[in-house]
């Protein structure tokens, strides 16, 4: 199974020009013939989509900004009306358009953003005494049904971002004073669990179509697990083995999943970078950077590792192409 291994006319044609198979002055014509450049119809669709998403994004942002301004002069009813009316309007539009068209999905996204604005307004107006993390947790919980129905990646990414924010703010509120060493690490473990589960669920259900969301979440997972491993190297405690085990497990799982099951070079590149960072940290700690020679060694070590990683990844990319 291959992911992202499509042929791109633009890259192929550019390669052929470089090899001299196509005359340089004919590059433009070749790209047009090969379908690499947008046609008039494609341009119209582009303009249409651009106006749609920019319009939706700006209106949603405008409402959020407006609430943040905290306009005290407005009465309670006016404030709620200004959020609830667009929300109801969006839902009505959604009813008419249905969820299959891009306009429908954009409206659902807008409605999700407005729902957050509404919750913020409720918390602010009624002084519920809720912490900020509760707002984000409530927001995430509120839009779960919509995300399930909408089934498009952007909305799920918004939901996951909200969950991450809720977790981070929770730890900030409750563990900020329990010591720096303990709080952040536990937070990292929870975030790792949340995002890792999301990634696995995404991979199982979504398949090979558009992979940007999975890659985004995977980048977060990679960052967290790498940070955990680096922390374990610098601060050897009894629990450090758990971090190292997690990192090794993640590296092995990434290799098995994205080399054998689904070919996704991006994930492998993430893994390679993590291996470089962790092993460099490990070696640096081992040789104790003091004399100049140790710096030279580290520099060469990193370069050699990255060269090996680059060679390995290019080999896989080449095999994917044949």
């Amino acid at each position, binding site marked *: 199974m291959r992911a992202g291994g499509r042929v791109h006319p633009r890259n192929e044609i550019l390669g052929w020009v470089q090899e001299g198979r196509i005359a340089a002055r004919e590059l433009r014509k*070749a790209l047009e013939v090969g379908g690499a450049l947008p046609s008039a119809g494609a341009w119209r669709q*582009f303009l249409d989509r651009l106006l749609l998403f920019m319009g939706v994004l700006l209106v949603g942002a*405008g409402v959020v900004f407006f609430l943040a301004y905290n306009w005290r002069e407005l009465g309670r009813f006016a404030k709620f009306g200004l959020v609830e009316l667009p929300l109801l309007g969006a839902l009505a539009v959604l009813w008419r358009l249905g969820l299959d068209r891009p306009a429908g999905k954009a409206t659902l996204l807008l409605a999700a953003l407005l729902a957050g604005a509404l919750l913020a307004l409720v918390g602010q107006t009624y002084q519920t005494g809720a912490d900020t993390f509760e707002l984000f947790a409530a927001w995430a919980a509120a839009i779960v049904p919509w995300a399930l129905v909408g089934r498009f990646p952007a909305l799920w990414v918004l939901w996951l971002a909200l969950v991450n924010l809720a977790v981070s703010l929770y730890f900030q509120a409750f563990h900020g004073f329990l010591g720096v060493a303990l709080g952040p690490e536990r937070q990292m473990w929870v975030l790792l669990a949340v995002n890792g589960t999301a990634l696995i669920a995404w991979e199982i259900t979504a398949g090979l179509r558009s992979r940007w969301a999975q890659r985004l979440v995977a980048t977060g997972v990679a960052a967290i697990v790498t940070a955990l491993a680096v922390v374990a190297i610098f601060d050897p405690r009894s629990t450090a083995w758990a971090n190292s085990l997690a990192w090794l497990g993640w590296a092995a799982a990434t290799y098995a999943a994205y080399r054998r099951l689904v070919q996704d070079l991006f994930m492998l590149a993430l893994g390679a970078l993590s291996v470089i960072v962790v092993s460099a940290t490990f070696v640096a700690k081992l040789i104790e950077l003091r004399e100049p*020679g140790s710096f030279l060694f580290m520099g060469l070590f*990193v370069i050699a590792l990255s060269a090996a990683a680059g060679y390995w990844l*290019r080999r896989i990319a080449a095999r994917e192409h044949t």
Partner: protein
Amino acid sequence: MSAAREALWQQLRGAGLVRGELPAQGEPRAPWYVRVMLGVAGWIGAVFLFFFVGAAFTFVMRSGAAALVVGLAACAGAAAIFRASRGEFAAQFALAVSLAGQAILVYGIAELLGHPSLRITALVVAVQQAVLFLVVPNFLHRVFTSWSALIALQFALTDYGLSAFAPALATAACAAIWLGEFDHAERAELLRSGGYGTALAAVQIAVIQGPLWYGLLLRHPRPGTQAIAWAGAAASAAVFLWMVGALLRREAVALGSEAGKRAIAGAVLLAALALKAPGIAPALVILIAGHANGNRVLAGLGIAALVAYLSYYYYSLEATLLEKSAVLAVTGIVLLAARLVLRKTLSA
């Protein structure tokens, strides 16, 4: 996979653009994220090498002339390695050596000029990076040197109090390169690397403003005057309009035709928005250039830049949140209305 390639080749042969059989798969270009990963690793290696030079040759760090010589030697050596070898290890090694050499060079020049003002140093760095961009034939290296040249220019402009013009400058450079990508196919690698470098710089300059750097680095807040800020925003909007016009000309779309009028109307709308939110212009230029050239990575960068700028816009101090929300909401509604008009006139 090769079936699609074969089909593409046949298409081109039918148009008389190629002759003969489909060539064997050459060395494939690595995807952009692999190159980014290699670049990051090269950076880390360069930091270690820089510390090595600093620790091993303390005399280098004490004398400006010595630093200049060592830096030049490092950059020249790296350039030689790039030209001579195509291996992975050599390329990574040369990248790290060159980055370290550039840092040492800047240090040496600054020492020799007797700790000059920020603007002079920044201009010198910009020139140095521009020269390296032209001379050293490595893609990743060229992305870095073009990016750093523009960032250095931003620093120089900030020191003159003209930081508001930096986004327009970076956007113009980026647009000019991408619009001309297909006219200079012999210099393809140079143009593409410069295009990505300037695009990254344009996004960064739009989101992280000059005065912010100033305050962070030198603890000397130096905001420009209101008039200059307005002029800078107008310059960004003007660059955006110029880019749309140049693109229409490249695609041979008459300005008076239906498509031309629609494009101009949309562009004017968006340019008006850019007057109030200047960071929109670079993001849109990158997005449109990416779409026009069939470059999905570039288009994706444009979208990311739009989102990043919106986040920055929230915190910027040029206007109250109320005014900003009004600008956003009104513009959003106008755009949606324009889209409706567009669809009506098309289907009619």
